């Protein structure tokens, strides 16, 4: 299948007091047509920054994209002018954010905020845009969309707000939907509803999705492929089944072992990974996970591991095969 988005060697850093914080360090990933890519990692691992860098929605300054390409529809998004990029945002790439409360403008009605992209990108009249926005609201399961259009964000519940946010992202029928931890701020039952909704929408509309999350169990039923990130690096990449069946990076193994599993007969203690992810004020000279790793060998401190093929479509950035404990 054709790639709809292909990101290569993306590097983003932020100016901080006395230097730089290297948030994204040569990240590459691709999304093909109709595919849902899950990007997984702890807070601060650079997953949101990577994706927000593609549409340049990180604050610049202090942010700075220092390297990389992001090919989307035959163009490199990172080289577009602000004006060209704004024609892509909202029209070809829809965004859903983590906090539906703060991501909506409190002083504009939901309807107004939903119709804006239509007026800007498709030149629709107010009536046409209203009709389309109502259609989308009912598609995401908001009852009485005509009346709710006049409401303001604070009159919606959290789940409804996130539904409206998804409707807003999809209003111009984008080819790619980027969802940045869209369920993190919601109750568990609402999370499940949102995931079900997105699966339905994906089937009906056929868009590709990048779903950023720290919740491996939530993404399991949703994504086709997973990218695991750590300290601004992609450390493992695999189709969902292969990743869960054969995690090949110690960090991914740690993440999976920290989840309870239904198919286990006996109770076991959930594992945790000792230590904290690093904040990189300079680029590391070795594997960024080495200080927390059980399988560490001498080479890990010397060289940043490259993404090595584990099996077909499955790559991991580790000098050691954690199953055999032998160097690759």
């Amino acid at each position: 299948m054709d790639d709809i988005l292909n990101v290569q060697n993306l590097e983003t850093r932020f100016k901080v007091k006395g230097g730089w914080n290297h948030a994204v360090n040569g990240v590459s990933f691709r999304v093909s047509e109709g595919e849902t890519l899950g990007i997984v990692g702890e807070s601060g691992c650079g997953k949101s920054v990577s994706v927000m860098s593609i549409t340049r929605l990180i604050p610049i300054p202090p942010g700075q994209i220092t390297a990389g390409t992001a090919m989307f529809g035959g163009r490199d998004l990172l080289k577009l002018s602000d004006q060209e990029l704004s024609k892509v945002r909202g029209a070809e790439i829809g965004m859903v954010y983590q906090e539906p409360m703060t991501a909506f403008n409190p002083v504009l009605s939901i309807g107004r905020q939903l119709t804006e992209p239509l007026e800007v990108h498709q030149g629709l009249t107010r009536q046409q845009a209203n009709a389309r926005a109502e259609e989308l609201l009912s598609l995401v399961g908001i009852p009485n969309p005509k009346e709710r259009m006049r409401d303001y964000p604070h009159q919606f519940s959290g789940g409804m707000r996130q539904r409206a946010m998804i409707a807003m992202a999809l209003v111009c029928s984008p080819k790619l939907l980027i969802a940045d931890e869209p369920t993190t701020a919601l109750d568990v039952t609402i999370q499940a509803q949102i995931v079900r909704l997105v699966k339905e929408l994906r089937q009906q509309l056929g868009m590709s999705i990048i779903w950023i999350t720290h919740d491996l169990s939530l993404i399991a039923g949703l994504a086709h492929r997973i990218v695991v990130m750590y300290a601004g690096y992609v450390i493992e990449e695999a189709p969902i089944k292969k990743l869960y069946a054969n995690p090949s990076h110690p960090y991914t193994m740690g993440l999976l072992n920290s989840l309870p599993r239904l198919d286990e007969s006996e109770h076991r203690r959930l594992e945790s990974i000792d230590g904290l992810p690093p904040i990189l004020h300079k680029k590391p000279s070795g594997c960024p996970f080495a200080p927390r790793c059980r399988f560490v060998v001498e080479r890990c401190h010397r060289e940043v591991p490259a993404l090595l093929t584990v099996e077909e479509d499955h790559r991991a950035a580790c000098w050691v095969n954690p199953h055999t404990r032998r160097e690759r």
Partner: protein
Amino acid sequence: MTQYILRRALQAILTLLVISVLIFGLISSVPGGIMSAYSENPDFTQEDLARLREKYGLNDPVPVRYAKWLLNVLQGDWGNSFTSKRPALQEISDRLPNTLLLMGSMFLVTLAIAIPLGIYSALKQYTFFDHLLTTVALAGQSLPTFWFGLLLIIIFSVLLKTPDGKPLLPSAGMMTLGQPFNLLDRLRHLILPVSMLAVISAASYMRYMRSSMLDVIHKDYVRTARGKGLPEKMVISRHALRNALIPIVTLLGLDLPNLFGGALFTETIFAWPGIGRLFFDSAMKTDYPVLMAVLMVYSFLIVASNLLVDLVYTVLDPRITLD
């Protein structure tokens, strides 16, 4: 909404009644009494003073005088000025348009300067222009009104002359004496007093606007607006500005009545025949019918502008409902 406005109007009437009692009491207790402005005047004999006291009913106890005043006011009679003998309300309605012209122009000029510069400064935070603007604003805010007014007069009316030797800009009054009304002439007379007030208040409004805009510009919903692909102008004008203006409206509301008080210095320095000077003159002469009327008009404006601000809030911020 209508119910809310009615309730607030009723509260306002009560508030104004209390205020009238307080200021009536204050005026009546000035040292030397109401007639003090005349008692030091050698042209007035004791008999004259006694006659005046009798004439104006000043021999009654204060509560009785207040009751009489209130009854008259309720019938629309605010009494006559001691000095000009004209109805007090007439004095005010002669002066009020002048003050409103001065303050209205000043308000518009202030906002026209402060809001765009404040936004610009915020959008270009920490650039040369931002530093320049904030420095100038701090300096402007620190200028004493009277000093700055005199400085303007020295520069534009004394030092700078037109080619035929007249002052570049008139330093006093509302019109050139002996000439019929002429818009250009009126505008020329407005320039100095309006500049004096506008520069100082624009300085502080600009700083408020800047910080309010900075607060808003990093909010999630501004990022959302950009993420939707709106042009940057629309992001600023529709999504950021509307939120940034909410705190500014609060300040405007607080300033609205203050502006009438602030006119005192300006009207005095530039001999502008407005309400501020009327208040000052009548206070010096304890011309209490006029003084009461002026103060009641002030009080009314304060109460009314508070209500106005609350109503404007509901338009700007849908989260606020009045009931």
